[in-house]
């Protein structure tokens, strides 16, 4: 049987993803204990990669399968299969701004500047609504941008909404909901059809309880 390579997203999804993978009979203690990026267990290989890179590894076939948030998946635009959602890592991609933007006035303003780690999703949101958003791509601490006048709005993921509140921002609109998903390379899906099916069914059975 052919060997699977599975990419796991670093960050807040990593701990629950490791738990899920270990419930399938793999041993990933080494991932918790060390900073190793490649691990082997029970005939499978595991890659620990940045969330935004996981869809790329899978699209190119460097990994057969990946576990990643739908937010990072959509942002990548990767052409992969996404057969399962995994029920954890729940969050939402939202448009937020300072409290004074709360009236609907922001939708009618020209020349809005929007700071985000999700330029594709943000661009898509603004252009499909005919809004002229100038997208400013940042790589972290997005909430800072409106506070210092770099941007009028932000597009970012929120979990509890606490970070927004702490920085004086309010949610203006929800773009989409996200959770962890299992993604599969299109070539692996047929070249390793039996192992992939087995993996998908195994995870499904864990979810049913």
């Amino acid at each position, binding site marked *: 049987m052919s060997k699977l390579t599975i990419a796991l997203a670093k960050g807040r999804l990593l701990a629950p993803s490791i738990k899920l993978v270990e419930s399938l009979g793999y041993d990933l203690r080494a991932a918790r204990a060390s900073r190793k990026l490649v691990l082997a267990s029970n005939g499978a290989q595991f890659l620990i990669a940045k969330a935004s890179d996981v869809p790329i590894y*899978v*699209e*190119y*076939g*460097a990994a057969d399968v990946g576990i990643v948030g739908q937010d990072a998946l959509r942002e990548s*635009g*990767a*052409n*992969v*299969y*996404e*057969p*399962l*959602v995994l029920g954890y890592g729940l969050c939402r991609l939202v448009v937020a701004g300072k409290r004074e933007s709360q009236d609907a006035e922001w939708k009618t303003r020209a020349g809005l500047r929007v700071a985000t780690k999700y330029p594709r999703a943000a661009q898509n949101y603004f252009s499909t609504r005919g809004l002229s958003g100038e997208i400013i791509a940042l790589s972290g601490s997005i909430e800072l941008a409106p506070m210092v006048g770099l941007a009028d709005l932000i597009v970012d993921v929120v979990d509890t909404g606490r970070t927004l509140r702490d920085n004086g921002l309010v949610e203006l609109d929800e773009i989409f909901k996200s959770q962890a998903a299992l993604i*599969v*390379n*299109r*070539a*692996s*899906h*047929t*070249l390793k*059809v039996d192992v992939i*099916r087995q993996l998908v069914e195994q995870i499904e059975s864990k979810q049913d309880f």
Partner: protein
Amino acid sequence: MLTPQLDKQLPDGVADLFFNDAARKRAAERALADTFTRWGYAEIIPPMFEYYESLGAKAGPQLREEMYRFFDRDGRTLALRADFTIPIARIVGTKLFDRAMPLRFYAIGSVFRFKEPQAGVRREFTQAGIELIGANTADADAEAIALAMTALRALGLDDFRFTLGNAAYLQATLRDLALNAADDAALRDAIRRKNTAALAQLLAALNLDSTRHTALARLPTLWGNAEVLDRAICIDDDARAAIERLRAVVAQLAQFGLADCVTLDLAENRGMDYYTGILFEGFAQGLGFAVASGGRYDNLIAHFGHAIPAVGFAIGVERVMMLQRTRASVAPEVIAQTHSARIEDARARGRIVEVDVLNRAEDALRAYARVRGAREIWWRDGAIENV
């Protein structure tokens, strides 16, 4: 130092090929041409560019958007060919429609698409493909798939599998639903990506009759061996015919001994405004994206005047090259110090002989022969020296 104008020597998505890469590419093209020829396919060479209105109007919206367009001096819009299928459809629909059918054509060459950077994507790339025109039968479908597989084998790729679906099945299942464009696109996308969760949400919002609902909800799971054909729910005769066609194609492929190389996948629905029947993609071990893709397009040639069914595929030559580990030799066998009748003789027998035109000293010529990878040096006095 580069001159400022040459800071960026090449636009994105094109490449210079020379030495080993050029030799490998030509070797792959020759192997493909030989294979297609032996199956009775004749070469067809459409122009590199033609009127946009004939190429663009018949292409799907995505392909149309990706076409390179420019103006002729009389103001008409031209486009570079973005595939071979549309030009061949034009040629057949306007010139060859009254010939004995089927017609079998192959084409090999560059096609051009303006694409965003993505896995395995270039803007000028080489397609090698066939079109089998004038036969809407399971035998024709199976021949196209079997030839694609045989062609990959001729290129030295043995570890491959093909996915096989039928666009007609989903078309039948979605017929008369009158979905708006956004719902339709979202539904097809969720099915194509096997996104069961998103599909369930979309279906819940659409309020379909229960047979159709179940038929669609099941689609992302209908992949695997021929058993999936039994699980497909057919809402009408067209859907049933689509499933029966797949069954017949798989049976035919079994005759070729190739049925084991196929994964059926009923969720496959790329290029919906193009394909009308079977559609397939070939994947080879070691590459994460398809090396071959094709399908049946029975409505395309009709746009050019005559309704003639057809099936075809294209192999991505650069993608195949990524997988080939072999190096094609570009070294001369012999470096000769000077010209002689013996050299003509050797060349006539197929040996590769290069003559020194720099009048090198002996040691310099030996050093050059080593760098070039030649095996022999033929000296002026007739002596032969092994390198």
